[in-house]
């Protein structure tokens, strides 16, 4: 019956599991769904925004390029070959352009069909430079207009060329202008998003057309990766892709320009781009983990408390069962003793009658002739006295058994204690213990279960007698009317209870008696019985000072005031 620790542990584990399952599963599910939805929509929005941004920027750059091309075209169309081949005139044109569009045009040049630069206006010494083998020249001479990729060229600095082909007679010539790389670069880099967002341009050969980003993964495959692999989305198309490398994840948005020759790339670190998203996720995870922590702690506390309560209740039930058994034992003893008493009563009655009859007969004898008649009479009287003693004992036993019923009823506490004293008197006499009564008359009747109260007093008196078994001593039992309750005091002159044990004596299974002698339940049962009646029991003792048990029993129909137990 006693609750096992293993059982408690498994019970607690089950409770914790159940609570956690019920509480955490929906929480995680909800969090997961919401976070996923949020992530999805955030990315969608972000991508849409980036796409739009990059497209707009792409248009701006395209416009810039076209503008430069148109300017050169206009210059080429406005003047004749002869005018332009004049170096001073060309210088003047360059000067005008630089005035009009500061920081854009670096130099101007007229290149003949064979690739020789006929005239040059600019800061460098490039007259008569031979472009016949340059890639840009090949393409420029083949097309009406041409914008080159960025290259180092003869000057050894990054630049690109805008060229317009014109005809002079049956020969072609080219007006070319070098676009300042820095201004173009500034224009491209003008778009900054967040801390790490940057824009650059790569050509079909995956070469950077503007200043490269610092942490660009796939440096040499960007165009291939973003355009060639996925199919050209056209000048308006935004390509969004996440690529991760050793430096972390990056988000890329791309759009082609210059008829697909160039790819404008926007690159941003994932952590930067999705900063708000990651922040929300972090907050959510923080709240979630705090919540989990709280739930786990609560589950542990609640389950521990529950299990503690359950084991306490089990313990109480256990105690009650034992008490029922003890009370049952007493009832059996009561019944048994009633039977024995009854069986003894009849023979004792016969003994009484026989002795009486002999006394009757002795009366007829002549005292003169019957020498020992007086002795006979004395002996017969003694027989009758002893028979009366038997009768007293049997009547006490019967009285005791009569009161072993287990239902509360109004009882005179004095009578009840008298019965117990009667039962314990032999035990006490053998131990040399005198029981002294000091009963108050006119005590109100108490509504108690007689068998239980008998058990209480029997326990207390027997304990007292046991304590003084070797030394002998005195037990004082006093009752008093305290209006709202009846006070019963049982004091003995025994060795007393050491202070260290005093706190434990009402605990179940606590005993100082030798093994096999006491169950350790007596006082705990006493307290249970008295507490259930709404009463109180306390003890006052100390080594060498004797022991006093004080019991307060509420008078029927009256509430019992809360009173401090230990004085």
């Amino acid at each position, binding site marked *: 019956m006693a609750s096992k620790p293993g059982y408690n542990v498994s019970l607690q584990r089950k409770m914790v599991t159940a609570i956690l399952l019920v509480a955490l599963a929906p929480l995680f599910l909800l969090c997961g769904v919401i976070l996923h939805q949020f992530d999805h929509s955030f990315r969608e929005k972000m991508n849409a925004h980036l796409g739009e941004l990059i497209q707009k920027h792409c248009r701006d750059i395209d416009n810039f390029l076209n503008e430069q091309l148109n300017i050169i075209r206009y210059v080429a169309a406005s003047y004749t070959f002869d005018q332009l081949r004049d170096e001073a005139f060309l210088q003047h044109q360059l000067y005008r352009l630089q005035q009009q569009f500061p920081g854009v045009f670096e130099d101007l040049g007229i290149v003949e069909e064979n690739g020789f630069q006929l005239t040059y206006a600019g800061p460098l010494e490039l007259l008569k430079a031979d472009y016949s083998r340059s890639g840009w020249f090949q393409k420029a001479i083949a097309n009406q207009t041409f914008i080159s990729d960025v290259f180092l060229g003869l000057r050894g600095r990054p630049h690109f060329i805008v060229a317009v082909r014109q005809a002079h007679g049956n020969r072609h010539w080219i007006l070319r202008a070098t676009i300042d790389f820095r201004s173009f670069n500034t224009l491209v880099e003008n778009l900054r998003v967040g801390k790490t967002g940057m824009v650059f341009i790569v050509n079909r050969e995956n070469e950077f057309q503007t200043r490269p980003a610092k942490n660009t993964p796939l440096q040499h495959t960007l165009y291939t990766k973003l355009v060639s692999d996925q199919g050209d989305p056209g000048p308006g198309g935004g390509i969004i892709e996440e690529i991760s490398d050793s430096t972390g994840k990056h988000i890329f948005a791309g759009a082609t320009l210059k008829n697909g020759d160039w790819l404008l790339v926007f690159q941003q670190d994932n952590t930067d781009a999705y900063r708000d998203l990651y922040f929300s996720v972090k907050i959510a995870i923080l709240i979630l983990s705090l919540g989990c922590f709280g739930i786990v702690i609560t589950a542990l506390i609640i389950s521990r408390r529950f299990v503690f309560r359950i084991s306490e209740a089990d313990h109480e039930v256990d105690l009650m069962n034992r008490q029922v058994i003890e009370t049952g034992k007493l009832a059996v003893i009561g019944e048994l003793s*009633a039977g024995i008493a*009854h069986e003894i009563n*009849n023979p004792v*009655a016969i003994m009484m*009658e*026989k002795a009486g009859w002999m006394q*009757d007969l002795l009366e007829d004898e002549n005292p003169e002739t019957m020498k020992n008649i007086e002795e006979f009479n004395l002996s017969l009287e003694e027989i009758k006295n002893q028979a009366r003693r038997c009768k007293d004992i*049997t009547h006490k036993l019967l009285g005791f058994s009569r009161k072993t019923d287990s239902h509360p009823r109004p009882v005179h506490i004095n009578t009840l204690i008298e019965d117990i004293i009667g039962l314990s008197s032999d035990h006490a006499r053998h131990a040399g213990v005198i029981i002294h009564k000091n009963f108050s008359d006119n005590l109100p009747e108490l509504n108690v279960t007689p068998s239980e109260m008998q058990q209480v007093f029997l326990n207390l008196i027997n304990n007292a007698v046991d304590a003084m078994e070797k030394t002998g001593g005195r037990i004082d039992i006093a009752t008093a009317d305290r209006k709202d309750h009846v006070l019963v005091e049982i004091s003995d002159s025994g060795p007393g209870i050491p202070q260290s044990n005093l706190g434990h004596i009402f605990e179940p299974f606590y005993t100082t008696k030798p093994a096999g002698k006491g169950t350790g339940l007596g006082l705990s049962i006493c307290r249970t019985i008295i507490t259930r009646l709404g009463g109180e029991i306390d003890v006052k003792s100390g080594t060498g000072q004797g022991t006093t048990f004080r019991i307060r029993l509420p008078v029927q129909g009256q509430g019992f005031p809360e009173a401090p137990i230990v004085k």
Partner: protein
Amino acid sequence: MATTRNVEKEHPPGLDPRWPYRAIRLLLVDDEAAFVDTLVNRLKKRKFKVSRAYSGEGGIRLLKKADYDVAVVDLKMSSLDGLATLKVFREMAPDLPVIIFTGHGSEKSAEESLAYGAFDYLLKPYEFDDLLSKIKSAYHTGKEY
């Protein structure tokens, strides 16, 4: 004790003090023969006129044949018990006072017998003088002088 004995000798409790030659007629019913016989001897010595029966049925048979002043019936008997016998006695002779003996300490059953019309009860073992005084008061009740 000696004085009581002298009084008993001068005024035997078995005789009606008003009619000195008339003995009080007792009917004793108890299945404990050793007890009944001794009690009969003692009562006869005190001038009672005693009839005895060792069972309830025997008691009823005796009551059919003769009248009695007081009956003493043991509560616990093997065949017909005291209460049943008492009931029959009450029907046969409503005026007959019946004293109940009981070896059982239970006053509950003795009190039950009072409810059935017993005059009084005595718990065994009893004091002989108590028995005499109960018989005496039983004899005098219901008698109008």
